[in-house]
């Protein structure tokens, strides 16, 4: 008996495995259909817009307003602990989705063929599923788009039940939207933000999710609800509104076929359940991430990232392309031009250099994509420590160990590198600091410049005005400021990182010079010795991010001053931070010679690049995102700057 039993057990195991795989396959098929659906929606919308007849519901679409709704959501959201398991499954899911997208190839014919096939597979319509579709937890994006087509038809009462299906939709839709941005004109990509936030709000509640799950379980097997939804959508699109009654019966048959083919025996609830719970986790994580991820949709420039992104693999991989070597000593800072593929580097060799990435000089002097500098800015009498570029790209500002802040007119980036010396390039010098200037930042709206110095003071300037000096902030009791940034979300505030016995950031109002918030933990002792090297402000959210000598990156809530999150980010001190213009990615540089790219949604490291060599115990001094083009850059103690694409 035992001899026989063992194989049986093995068979059972194998059958179980097979079922698991099939259910996975089924899940993926459903996701594909969701993608197809979303593509259809996009195409329909694009078509409508192209031909100028805006359906009434389209008027709701607002340009993205980054602050509203989302800002409140994210703060609690960031506290949500993500399980690594869900992250992994979610990532795998996304990766597979993208692979499928690649396979699909985004071409019209293929999509059409596939949708026809799916439709023929699925039969025509299903009333119960349609009800679920109408449930309010579908995010606003979806509702708006769909309403435009199906308002008249949506007579059945909305069920309160919010199925897992919708959550899965949210998940896949986030992915879809990320991928599909390029399909539609960017200005209409983003639908009503508030709706979106509300839509996400519901599933964010943990209790709510639990309820849904249990409902889901009691409800039994609906392996096809997403399928059905996709199918329903296809029906909508094809205006097959007639004969709903007859369709129902035929559809039931299709349902069971579909179920069988996907390997979900109707009687076996348990095999199904793991998948559901897995999906729930997926959804949970995607909701945590999804919010910010969906924000991308409205961002025009982000599209440039994602176009290439979606065409490449699962996520964008940055590769070193340009090596900027011409400095004799460590490159302390770099700044990109706001529009052009142009950047400036500031070095300990007392100079700044201007580089045009489109002018890769393939002379006898260089090989490959070495770039030669176009202009050398000379005025500092010591190492140049910090650098920032004005928003219009016409000026840049540099601060040095000599205590001077120089304001430069940017020479034309097609200049002859060996042109004659034009003293007017040095526009003016801001005198006021009595020691090394370590931090500079410009305000995107007011044209203000803020500087911080080892003399203990932070100064506000209006470099384009006749009276350049405006205000001084801080007192000696705070310590020495190491880094400074404008609070991007508010604009009339600055955040300064002070290091004394205790390291902390202080937010000041630039008009009154009063300190508004101190970013610190309740336990003041916590920040003893946690030297802050760099502070940056999130471009749209009330979040401040700090880079620390103790290898951590910390996230702070500007409103409450509380520590939101703290993570070990590098093997050695984190020296530099940069956030992309849309607040989705964080770039960090460290003396461990690497730069790391972080997804701000879930604060996981997406890529690590070893970029520079060490000089003494220093390696990387600065990192930067191009504000509008897909470039990132790092500056190193090895006198080299690198640009990655």
């Amino acid at each position, binding site marked *: 008996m035992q001899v026989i039993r063992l194989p049986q057990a093995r068979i059972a195991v194998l059958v179980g495995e097979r079922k698991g795989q099939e259910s996975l396959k089924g899940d993926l098929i459903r996701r594909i259909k969701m993608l197809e659906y979303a593509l259809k929606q996009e195409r329909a919308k694009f078509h409508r817009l192209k031909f100028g007849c805006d359906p009434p519901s389209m008027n709701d679409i607002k340009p993205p307003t980054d602050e509203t709704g989302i800002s409140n959501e994210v703060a609690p959201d960031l506290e949500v602990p993500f399980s690594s398991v869900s992250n992994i499954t979610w990532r795998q899911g996304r990766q597979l989705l993208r692979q499928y997208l690649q396979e699909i190839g985004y071409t019209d014919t293929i999509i059409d063929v596939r949708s026809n096939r799916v439709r023929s597979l699925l039969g025509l319509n299903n009333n119960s599923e349609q009800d679920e579709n109408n449930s309010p937890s579908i995010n606003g994006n979806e509702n708006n788009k769909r309403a435009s087509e199906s308002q008249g038809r949506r007579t059945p009462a909305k069920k309160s039940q919010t199925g897992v299906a919708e959550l899965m939709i949210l998940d896949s839709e986030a992915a879809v939207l990320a991928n599909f941005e390029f399909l539609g004109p960017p200005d209409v990509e983003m639908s009503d933000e508030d709706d979106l936030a509300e839509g996400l709000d519901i599933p964010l509640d943990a209790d709510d999710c639990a309820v849904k799950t249990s409902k889901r379980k009691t409800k039994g097997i609906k392996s096809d609800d997403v399928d059905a939804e996709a199918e329903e959508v296809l029906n909508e699109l094809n205006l097959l509104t007639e004969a709903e009654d007859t369709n129902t019966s035929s559809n039931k048959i299709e349902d069971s076929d579909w179920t069988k083919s996907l390997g979900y025996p109707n009687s076996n609830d348990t095999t199904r359940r793991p998948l559901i719970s897995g999906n729930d986790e997926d959804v949970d994580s995607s909701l945590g991430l999804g919010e910010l991820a969906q924000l991308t949709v409205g961002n025009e420039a982000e599209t440039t990232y994602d176009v290439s992104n979606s065409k490449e693999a699962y996520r964008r991989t940055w590769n070193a392309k340009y090596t900027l070597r*011409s400095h004799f000593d460590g490159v302390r800072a770099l700044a990109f031009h706001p529009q052009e593929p142009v950047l400036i580097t500031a070095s300990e060799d007392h*100079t700044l250099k201007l580089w045009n990435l489109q002018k890769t000089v393939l002379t006898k*002097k260089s090989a490959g994509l070495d770039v030669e500098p176009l202009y*050398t800015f000379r005025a500092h009498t010591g190492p140049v420590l910090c650098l920032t570029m004005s928003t219009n790209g016409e000026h840049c500002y540099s601060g040095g160990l000599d205590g001077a802040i120089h304001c430069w007119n940017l020479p034309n980036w097609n200049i002859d590198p060996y042109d004659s010396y034009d003293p007017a390039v040095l526009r003016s010098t801001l005198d006021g600091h009595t020691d090394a200037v370590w931090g500079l930042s410009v305000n995107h709206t007011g044209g203000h410049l803020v500087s911080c110095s080892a003399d203990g003071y932070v100064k506000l300037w209006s470099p384009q005005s006749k009276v350049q000096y405006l205000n001084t902030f801080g007192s000696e009791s705070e310590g020495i400021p190491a880094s400074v940034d404008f609070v991007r979300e508010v604009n009339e505030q600055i955040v300064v990182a002070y290091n004394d016995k205790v390291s902390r950031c202080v937010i000041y109002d630039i008009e009154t010079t009063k300190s508004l918030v101190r970013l610190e933990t309740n336990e003041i002792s916590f920040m003893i010795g946690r030297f802050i090297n760099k502070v940056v402000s999130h471009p749209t959210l009330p979040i401040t991010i700090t880079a620390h000598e103790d290898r951590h990156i910390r996230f702070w809530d500007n409103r409450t001053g509380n520590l939101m999150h703290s993570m070990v980010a590098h093997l050695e001190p984190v020296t530099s931070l940069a956030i992309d213009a849309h607040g989705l990615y964080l770039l960090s540089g460290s003396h461990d010679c690497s730069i790391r790219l972080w997804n701000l949604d879930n604060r*996981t490291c997406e890529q690590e690049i070893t970029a520079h060599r060490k000089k003494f115990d220093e390696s990387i001094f600065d990192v930067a995102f191009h504000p509008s083009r897909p470039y990132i850059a790092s500056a190193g103690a090895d006198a080299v700057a690198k640009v990655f694409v």
Partner: protein
Amino acid sequence: MGLEQIEKPPTVSTPENMKMAADGSQVSLTRRNKPGTKAKDYCRWPDEPFEEMDSTLAVQQYIQQLIKNDPSNIDLILTNPETHDEGVWKYEHLRQFCMELNGLAVRLQSQCFPATCTQMTATEQWIFLCAAHKTPKECPAIDYTRHTLDGAACLLNSYKYFPSRVVIKESSVAKLGSVCRRVYRIFSHAYFHHRAIFDEFETKTFLCLRFTRFVLKYALMSTENLIVPIPKSGDDSIIATSGESEA
């Protein structure tokens, strides 16, 4: 849990942790200029013995360390610490000279105008043509200065000739001489036409003196080209004679 991949580094690298702890208790052990460092404390860390420098930039570190300690102790600065690759040693010194010459160029920018110094001259004997252009050109002195330094920066950082800072081809070492000859003209122009600037700069940096000793020690320039008189030095008669002949 979600931060699994982030939390890994500290657990994996215990030696790193120990190093950090040591750093925390004794700050001077890490040679870093942290943001907020005062100018007087910049690079003010205990010397690191050359043998312990494991960086690929060890030679630069060592040279800068010597200069920081005493820029006037030229003999020590020019003493190759061991039987180190002489090409690298010369190369790194020349990089350092060009870098420090920026300081002289900045000072010249405030006084040396194209209207007054229309040509790159030192004594009346020579007019130097700027080699940065396709056809050498009579650039004004300030442009010559800037172009020469920019060109030197490009050449010395050229991947073709100097792909490594650890090993340098003999053919590339040959390039150093021409760089020396060109940048030396900046010293000579400053000396003969902007003496106040030159003296102020030289008192502080001893750069021209160090440069002269350097090119003589490694025979990168001939004596007759070294026209700036430099102080006599008992242990180096060549310099003394060169100084006298031009004085």
